[in-house]
C-alpha cells in the first residue's frame, strides 16, 4: 500500500447508504458511527451500502447510483444480494446478514486501497436517445424544440410566480436522495430553485413480487405483530421512540446540524433511550432554531393534507386523533394524545420530540404493570395501520403532489423529510422479506 493509501485507510470510510425495504431505521442509526463518513452524494463514496431488501423496481435506480461512485468502489449488501447476473457477477461484493455491517464496510475500504479490483459499471455509458443535433451540445437539427434532444431533457420556458418567463427543468428525484422516504421518486418541474409542480409520484416499493434480501429493522416488525397479537406496550412505545429519533437524526444531518444528528442517532441506537438525554437534545435542537424560527412557516399543510398524512403530522396540525386512545391499557395509563398547534415543519418536529418523551414515559409506567396492546389496528409511527393492510399511508399519494407544489427547494425537502413518509412498511400481502 502506498503512503497515501495507508493514510486514507485510517480515515472514516466514505460510504453512501441506500436504504431499501425494512432498512430505513437501521440506515439512520449508521449516522452515529464514527468509523463511517456517510456522504450525501454517491460521487464522494467508495462503498455503496445497501440496507434492507430491494424490489425489482429499485434495482434500476440502484444501478444508476452504483455507477456514480468513483473508482475504486465496492458494494456491500446488508441483508441479501440480488441473484440477477448483473449484480451477482460484481467482484468484491459482500453479502451479509450480521448485525453490524461496519466491520465489513471497513474491510472492503482497506481492500480497495490495497489494490483490490474495483466494480465495473452496471449500465452502458451511452446517451439515452440517438444523436439528432448539429452543434456540439446537441443543439440545432430538425424537430429539436422541447422534448429530449440527445437524451437530455431540454429546459423550455414557462411562466413563473413573478410574471416572468423562465426556463423549466423536468427531472426525477429520488429514490436514494439523502433523507428521502424509502422507495419514493418524484417527477418534478423545477424553475430555478423553485419546485413548481410534482407531476408524478412513483412508489418503487409497491410491487414486492421480486423482493431480494431481508428485513433489518426489528422495530417496525413490532408494529406488524401488534396487528395480530398482544404486544407489550413498553416494547411498542420504545420502538416508536427509536423510530422518531432516527428520523430526526437523518433530518438534522440533512439540515446541516451533523453533530446534533450524530448525537440523536446515538440515542436512537440504544435499546432504551434515556429521557434526560432526549430532554437535553430537545433543548439543543430548539436553541439551534430547528424547531423554531428556521423552519417555522415552512411546509405548512392544511387540515385535509394533515388528515391524509395521519399520525404525528395530523396531531401537529391540532387534530388529536390517535388509535391508542381506543385501547384499554393505554387509557389505564392515562394516555392522551400530544396535540400541537402548527402544521408546519417546525411543528411536526416538535410534535415528534414530544411524542418521543411521551413514549418513554409510557414505556416506563407500562413495563412493571405488564400491560399489552390489543390486536386489530395499531397506531404506528407514521399513523394508523389496519390488519387488512389499509391505513393512513394509502391517502398520502393523493395529497402529496398538492402539498409539495410551488415550494422553494429548502421548503420542498424540509417538508418531505418532516412528513416521514413510510412507503416501505410491511402491509398484508406486501411482505418486506424475500419468500
Amino acid at each position, binding site marked *: 500500500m502506498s503512503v497515501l493509501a495507508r493514510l486514507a485507510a485510517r480515515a472514516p470510510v466514505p460510504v453512501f447508504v441506500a436504504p431499501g425495504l425494512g432498512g430505513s431505521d437501521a440506515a439512520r442509526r449508521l449516522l452515529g458511527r464514527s468509523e463511517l463518513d456517510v456522504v450525501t452524494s454517491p460521487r464522494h463514496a467508495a462503498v455503496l451500502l445497501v440496507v434492507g431488501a430491494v424490489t425489482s423496481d429499485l434495482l434500476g435506480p440502484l444501478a444508476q447510483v452504483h455507477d456514480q461512485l468513483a473508482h475504486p468502489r465496492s458494494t456491500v449488501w446488508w441483508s441479501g444480494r440480488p441473484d440477477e447476473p448483473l449484480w451477482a457477477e460484481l467482484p468484491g461484493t459482500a453479502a451479509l446478514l450480521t448485525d453490524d455491517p461496519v466491520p465489513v464496510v471497513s474491510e472492503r475500504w482497506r481492500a480497495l*486501497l490495497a489494490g483490490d479490483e474495483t466494480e465495473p459499471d452496471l449500465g452502458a455509458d451511452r446517451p439515452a436517445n440517438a444523436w439528432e443535433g448539429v452543434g456540439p451540445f446537441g443543439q440545432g437539427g430538425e424537430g429539436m424544440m422541447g422534448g429530449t434532444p440527445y437524451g437530455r431533457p431540454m429546459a423550455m420556458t414557462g411562466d413563473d410566480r413573478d410574471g416572468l418567463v423562465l426556463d423549466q427543468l423536468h427531472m426525477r428525484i429520488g429514490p436514494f436522495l439523502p*433523507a428521502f422516504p424509502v422507495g419514493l421518486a418524484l417527477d418534478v418541474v423545477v424553475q430555478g430553485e423553485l419546485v413548481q409542480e410534482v407531476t408524478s409520484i412513483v412508489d418503487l416499493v409497491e410491487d414486492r413480487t421480486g423482493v431480494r434480501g431481508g428485513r433489518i429493522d426489528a422495530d417496525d416488525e413490532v408494529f406488524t405483530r401488534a396487528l395480530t397479537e398482544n404486544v407489550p406496550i413498553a416494547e411498542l412505545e420504545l420502538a416508536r421512540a427509536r423510530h422518531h429519533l432516527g428520523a430526526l437524526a437523518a433530518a438534522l444531518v440533512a439540515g446541516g446540524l451533523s453533530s446534533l444528528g450524530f448525537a440523536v442517532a446515538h440515542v436512537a441506537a440504544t435499546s432504551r433511550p434515556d429521557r434526560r438525554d432526549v430532554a437535553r437534545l430537545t433543548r439543543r435542537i430548539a436553541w439551534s*432554531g430547528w424547531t423554531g424560527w428556521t423552519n417555522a412557516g415552512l411546509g405548512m399543510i392544511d387540515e385535509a393534507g394533515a388528515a391524509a398524512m395521519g399520525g404525528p403530522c395530523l396531531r401537529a396540525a391540532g387534530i388529536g386523533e390517535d388509535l391508542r386512545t381506543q385501547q384499554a391499557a393505554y387509557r389505564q395509563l392515562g394516555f392522551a394524545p400530544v396535540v400541537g398547534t402548527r402544521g408546519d415543519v417546525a411543528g411536526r418536529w416538535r410534535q415528534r420530540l414530544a411524542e418521543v418523551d411521551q413514549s418513554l414515559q409510557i414505556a416506563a409506567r407500562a413495563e412493571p404493570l405488564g400491560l399489552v396492546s390489543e390486536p386489530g389496528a395499531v397506531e404506528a409511527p407514521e399513523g394508523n395501520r389496519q390488519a387488512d393492510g389499509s391505513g393512513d399511508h394509502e391517502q398520502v399519494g393523493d395529497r402529496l403532489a398538492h402539498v409539495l407544489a410551488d415550494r422553494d427547494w429548502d421548503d420542498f425537502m424540509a417538508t418531505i423529510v418532516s412528513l416521514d413518509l413510510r412507503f416501505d412498511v410491511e402491509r398484508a400481502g406486501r411482505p418486506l422479506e424475500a419468500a
Partner: protein
Amino acid sequence: MNVTSAPLWLSPLVVVALLVVGAYATAVLDVLATVVLARRWRPNPFTTPVFRLAAMLTRSSVRTERPDRALSMLAPAAYAALIAAGLCVVPLADGWSVADLPAGLVLWGTVEALLIIVVFIRGWAPNSPMALLAAYRYTAVGLSYILLSMFVLIAVALPAESLQLSTIVESQAGLWNVVRQPLGLPLFAVVALGATFWGPLDLAESGDLAGGTSAESTGVSHAAWLVARAGGLAAFSAMTATAFLGGWQGPWLPGAAWLAIKTLAVLAGLVAARQLFARVPAERFVSIAWTVLLPLAFLDLVIAAIGSL
C-alpha cells in the same frame, strides 16, 4: 518593513503557507466542534483531516456528460486565488503584509463579490441538475450579504480615514472597532459564513441537494475545492480580527502571534456555527438580510460616522 520589499519568491510562499495552515486549522476545529458537541463521536481532531484528505485524493476523477471542463478546473483554483489575493492585504504584523495597498479594503470587497461568481461557476460546470440548483440558490442570496459587507467595511474605514488595512489596524490602538462599532463584527461574521457557504448559510454544498455544487465532484478537484473553502474561512477570520479586533496589536507577544490568536478565536466561532445553528432557508435569509441586517448595517455606519466626528 513591508514584506513586498522582500524577494518576490517569498510573497507567494507566505500566502500559500497561510492558506494551507488556515485550511488545516479550520478542519481541526471542525472535527473538534463535532467531537465536543456530539459527545460520542471521537476521532482525533488533528489527524482526521489529514486522513480524510488522503482518502479524497485516492478517489478517481469523474467526468459528467458534456461538462464545461475549463470551468471545472477553474473554480477551485479561482477560489483559492481570490482568497490568496485577499490575504495579501491583511497586515500580518507591525509593518508586515504581503501587499499593503492604499485601497486594500476595496480589494477585499472585490474578492467577496467575485467569490459568488466562482461558486456559481462551480455549480454550472458539471452540467448536472443538483449542482446547478445549488448554484442558483447560492447566487440568489449573494447580493444580500455583499451589501452588508459593503456598509460594514465602510464603517471600519471611517475612524481610520483610510482604506488601507494597516492604517485601519493602527486606528484601533486606543479602542478596538468591536467596541466602538458593536454591530460590525456579528454582521461581518454573517458575510463570512455566506461567502464561504458555511454552517447556517451553506446553501451551496448542502445535503438536501446531495452535496450541491460538489455533487459531481471527486478526487483531486473535490479536495482542492474543500481546502480552498477552508482556507477562505480562515482568511475571513483573519480579516475579522484585522478589522474589528485590532489585528496584530497586543502586549508581550509578537504581532503575528496576536493576529494568529485572534484569528483562531474568530475561526472557532465561525466553525462552531455549523454545528450550533440550523441551515437557514434561502428565502428566509434574504428576508432577514433586507429587513433586519441591512438596517442594522446602516445603523452601524451611522454609529461609525458619529464616532468619527
